[in-house]
């Protein structure tokens, strides 16, 4: 064992930090640090900035335009970006779908899809879940029938994050209704194709990121099939594993904990800072303990992954990481007291919108909306109950 950090990695951190200081515009950072869903225009702008620096895809190999960084460097990069308040980049394109595309797609599809992700021009939506196929994803029923050079798609997806703003949807369809997993195929679908209707779903933070997507005789070129027909389940599982690998969201949790400290240091109770109330600091410390444990489990998982060990550590990280983001939110709401209960309307996609907000400190808007949204952290990406079953099966042989 060798616990020493490479001094070169530390220098790398300084380099990233300096870059952020110079290139992350303050308005982006301000919006990125509050809890509302990121604005797509901000995400595009920021991805382009990263691309121009050669950092468009920290987790991709060099041959596809990635940085080729070690897992540790990617981790450092993500952490610095989060702490600086950089807008979340396209998790779908960069982490979930991109790696599956370069692993399984033919050259033509790779050439068509990968550059847009790097430049921030091709945002991905995940069209997996359906009303009757949530935890039991393989029960999906959206049907694709081949007619010549096209598939004709009919069906109904739900919980599709960003379907209203994305440029492409990774869609799971049934091409063989007789089979369950082995009848699933993976199509890359342009959401502007005729026959697609997107209906917004408002979440309990009164914000819009979720959608229902209806497919009515939608014609998709066969050239948009990823890999082979009826092999979609393999690709889907890879996407889900990619999703979970970062689902501990250590960088995000670090930013949120830092925000909580800031709030607790400014809010007051009869003159005393909230952080000085006798019961408060121990709870903050507990969150720090749990975050550190999660961080080092993440580091271990990343190292083992690069060594080719394939235990689903992602499930462990998903369970605890999602619980942690909820607990940090809980304490933040408490630290804010009444401002944690005020409704600050989501500003929406227009970065200059000034909604009619009630009074309160700068750090208040977005906290409650995010707290509400994060109830979903223990649900999305595979609910925690399902993760626990995966853990029991694959680690414990139960």
């Amino acid at each position, binding site marked *: 064992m060798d616990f020493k950090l490479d001094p070169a990695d530390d220098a790398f951190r300084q380099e990233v930090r300096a870059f952020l200081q110079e290139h992350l515009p303050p308005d982006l950072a301000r919006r990125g640090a509050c809890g509302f869903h990121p604005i797509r225009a901000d995400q595009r702008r920021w991805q382009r900035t990263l691309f121009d620096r050669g950092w468009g895809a920290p987790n991709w190999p060099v041959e596809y335009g990635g940085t080729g960084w070690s897992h540790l460097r990617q981790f450092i990069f993500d952490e610095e970006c989060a702490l600086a308040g950089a807008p979340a980049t396209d998790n779908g394109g960069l982490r979930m779908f991109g790696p599956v595309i370069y692993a399984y797609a033919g050259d033509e599809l790779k050439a068509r899809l990968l550059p847009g992700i790097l430049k921030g021009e091709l945002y991905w939506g995940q069209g997996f879940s359906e009303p009757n196929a949530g935890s039991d994803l393989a029960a999906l029923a959206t049907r694709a029938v081949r007619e010549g050079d096209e598939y004709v798609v009919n069906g109904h997806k739900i919980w599709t994050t960003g379907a209203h703003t994305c440029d492409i949807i990774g869609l799971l369809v049934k091409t063989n209704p007789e089979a369950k997993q082995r009848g699933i195929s993976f199509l890359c679908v342009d959401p502007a194709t005729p026959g697609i209707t997107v209906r917004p779903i408002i979440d309990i933070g009164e914000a819009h990121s*979720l959608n229902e997507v209806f497919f009515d005789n939608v014609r998709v070129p066969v050239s948009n099939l990823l890999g082979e027909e009826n092999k979609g389940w393999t690709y889907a599982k890879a996407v889900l594993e990619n999703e979970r690998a970062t689902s501990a969201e250590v960088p995000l949790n670090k930013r949120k904990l830092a925000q909580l400290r800031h709030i607790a240091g400014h809010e007051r109770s009869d003159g005393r800072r909230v952080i000085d109330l006798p019961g408060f600091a121990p709870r903050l410390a507990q969150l720090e303990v749990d975050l550190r444990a999660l961080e080092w489990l993440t580091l271990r998982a990343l190292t083992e992954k690069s060594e080719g060990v394939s235990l689903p550590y992602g499930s462990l990280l998903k369970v605890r990481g999602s619980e942690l983001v909820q607990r940090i939110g809980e304490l933040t709401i408490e630290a804010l007291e009444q401002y944690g209960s005020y409704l600050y309307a989501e500003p929406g996609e227009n970065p200059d919108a000034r909604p009619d907000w009630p009074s309160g400190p700068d750090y208040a808007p977005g906290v409650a909306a995010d707290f509400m949204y994060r109830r979903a952290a223990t649900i999305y990406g595979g609910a925690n109950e399902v993760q626990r079953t995966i853990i029991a099966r694959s680690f414990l042989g139960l």
Partner: protein
Amino acid sequence: MDFHLTDEQEMLRESARRFLEKECSLEQRLHAPVEGGFDAARWSRFADMGWLAASLPEDCGGLGGDIVEAALLMEEFGRTLVVDPFWGIGVLAAQTLLAADAEKARELLPLLCAGELRPALAHHELQSRGVIEHVTTQARPAGDGAWTLHGEKTLVMGGNVADRFIVSARTAGDSRDRDGITLFLIDANAPGLQRRDVRLIDNRWTAEITLDRVQVTAADLLGEVGQGWTALEYGHARGLIALCAEAVGVMERAMWITRDYLRTRKQFGVTLNTFQALQHRMAEMLIELELSRSMVYRAMAYLARPLAARQAALSVTKARVGQSGRFVCAHGIQLHGGIGVTEEYSIGHYFKRMTVFENELGSAQFHLEQLALCECAEPVAARP
């Protein structure tokens, strides 16, 4: 001990349940939200049905009931997540007024019972966080028994539709003193009083109030100068119990909604209720609910005890109910999966209500701290 309701109380509960399910269901409200969370016609019905009078004495126009009646009603309100300002006006303000000034109570509470007067308690301030004596709003003598009020009040529940405000202000002492707090009853239109209405995440409404050189006279006094704390404590104690009773209603309904959902939602070819992991979670939810209900009973039992014992009991209750409520409603969402985090479905609204509850009248944390102080202050001896 007898945990049974009287026939009258049983009737009150039944009629409230029937009315609220028919007229005030969450589904109706989500489809037709009422601006300001207030429907004047419905408020009159509350009055007609005797709800505003249920927990007030007869010489004040009430029906002679007490906290039990308020708790019963609030539990029903919790079940349907009523947003009308019953708690702020009909419990907190009414009970504070009752304790503050017997003569004014006999004069004004009959109007409140009839739905004709809507006072709200403007007491909470930015840094209160559960501390009743935290009052920094100043009342400065202006000669001839008049005062000038300066200060800011927040979370004035029902304040957006109030016609009067019961304002707490300092006539002596500093923000931590129980002595020196004076209560005034002032008109909502008084010159110098500014109101900003705020919607809370659970869709109830509240107001922030700025008092900028508001002139009051001796006629506006409630009770004795400097003696307001006792009435505030009286009103807060009843308000806290009513709030916790509401939370029990919130939890109970959230639990049954979840149970029903598990019985109908199918995944993997079976209904979700067949998964033991989910059955066990629901069992935990029921345990938390029943512990909370017991805590509300206990708080009512301790209401007539001496101050220290009463306050300890209230803290125990608020802490426990807050923790349980969060658990029950959070897992209510969890067991629903994605549908649980949507605005158009019910269960998330129960969670929102409990989130706001935590920041009302002191968080669980605050009340644990109060109890911790008692632990340290008392000699090591068996407590009853």
